[in-house]
């Protein structure tokens, strides 16, 4: 395989930046939501669950359009960001990261929630009787036991972000250097006569990135001792 051109490297770098920032920002949010959904009961829980899952079941174009309504200059979130920080994600890579994060969220919440539900609460009780407060119990028992799920969430979220197309192009368009991530670049190249070589190279890179993420997470799970909860995915 021939090396990528500088423009193609820039696309890969942009995609990585968008995906990693999206995962980094959404991971704590996903964990918090998973915790609430796994551990507490409250009125409206079903509605929250449905809302979290919405990006999974909606056509991505619709999610992108909803993001446009929310973050556009006249949208509530858009206005807030503009008035408080003088910032808009419109047509920026940050917007692409928002789209990626929103699309990754339901998958990540599901993976983390399942792993939290699989943690034996009796072990937390045992830790408490041994003198560990709630926080120490969380960090020394709950989190390590849920770790395979958290890693799975990161891999799934990363793969979803790297592959994000519909919501991104609807929300922040297809702007070279800002929002033209790998899938958008592949789509664009397909529209251009003689773009097949670029398509092939970028497609191979996409496959390698996804496989790489999977390999890294498997490695991390082995490193953490397997935790007895089986495989990542």
């Amino acid at each position: 395989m021939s090396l990528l051109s500088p423009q193609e490297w820039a696309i890969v770098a942009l995609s990585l930046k968008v995906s990693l920032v999206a995962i980094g920002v959404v991971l704590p949010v996903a964990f918090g939501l998973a915790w609430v959904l796994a551990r507490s009961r409250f009125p409206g829980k079903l509605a929250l669950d449905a809302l979290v899952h919405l990006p999974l079941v909606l056509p991505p174009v619709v999610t992108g359009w909803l993001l446009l309504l929310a973050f556009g200059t006249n949208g509530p979130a858009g206005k807030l960001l503009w008035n408080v920080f003088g910032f808009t994600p419109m047509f920026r890579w940050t917007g692409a990261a928002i789209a990626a994060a929103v699309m990754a969220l339901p998958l990540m919440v599901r993976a983390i929630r399942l792993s939290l539900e699989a943690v034996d609460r009796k072990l937390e009780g045992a830790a408490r009787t041994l003198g560990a407060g709630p926080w120490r119990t969380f960090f020394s028992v709950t989190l390590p036991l849920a770790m395979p799920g958290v890693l799975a969430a990161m891999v799934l979220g990363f793969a979803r972000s790297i592959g994000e197309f519909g919501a991104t192009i609807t929300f922040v368009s297809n702007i070279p250097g800002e929002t033209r991530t790998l899938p958008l670049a592949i789509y664009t190249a397909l529209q251009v006569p003689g773009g097949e070589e670029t398509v092939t190279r970028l497609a191979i890179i996409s496959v390698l990135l996804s496989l790489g993420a999977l390999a890294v997470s498997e490695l991390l799970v082995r490193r953490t001792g397997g935790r007895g909860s089986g495989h990542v995915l």
Partner: protein
Amino acid sequence: MSFEVDVEVRRGNRTIVAAFSAPGGLTALFGPSGAGKTSILDMIAGLLRPLRGRIAVSGEVLFDSEAGIDLPPEKRCCGYVFQDERLFPHRRVRDNLLFGWKLAPAERRWLDFDTAVGFLGIGHLLERMPRTLSGGEAQRVAIGRALLSGPRFLLMDEPLSSLAAARRREIMTLIERIRDELGVPILYVSHDRAEVDRLAATVIDIG
């Protein structure tokens, strides 16, 4: 009195009421399965909240609904040996044993690691993961983990029930040694008359 318990709790659709006091040494809570013996231990450990009542051990009040006292489990200093061991599956035996020991302030540690390991005969297991242990080995580690957390009293929930006959004798001898040599008050749950007759100074019938 070592244990003073007067509690009421709802489990499902029935109410469990227990009121007893017991001197030091080993006290057995004796009764059929499902009588609520484990619930009583859980309430003393702080893992289950009584509807109302009062729990005191060696003079210290752990729970008193009228006075609004409800110490969290980590402040109760109990060594709880569970029926199902509950070893941390992601930690080696050594780290399981040291979990409570590291959290206990130095003046509360009345047993050091090497003594406990020798006493229980688990020196050869220290680097093993809990899932590789036999039932008897896991139970000895669980007892060691509880002893090393510097407990003021022990709660033992049918520690022999999951063991084969040969192992039962071994663990029973061990419990007798804990009772006689270490001198901590023990509340011991069982549904086996012979076991209770052999171990307990005081027997309280539940259910």
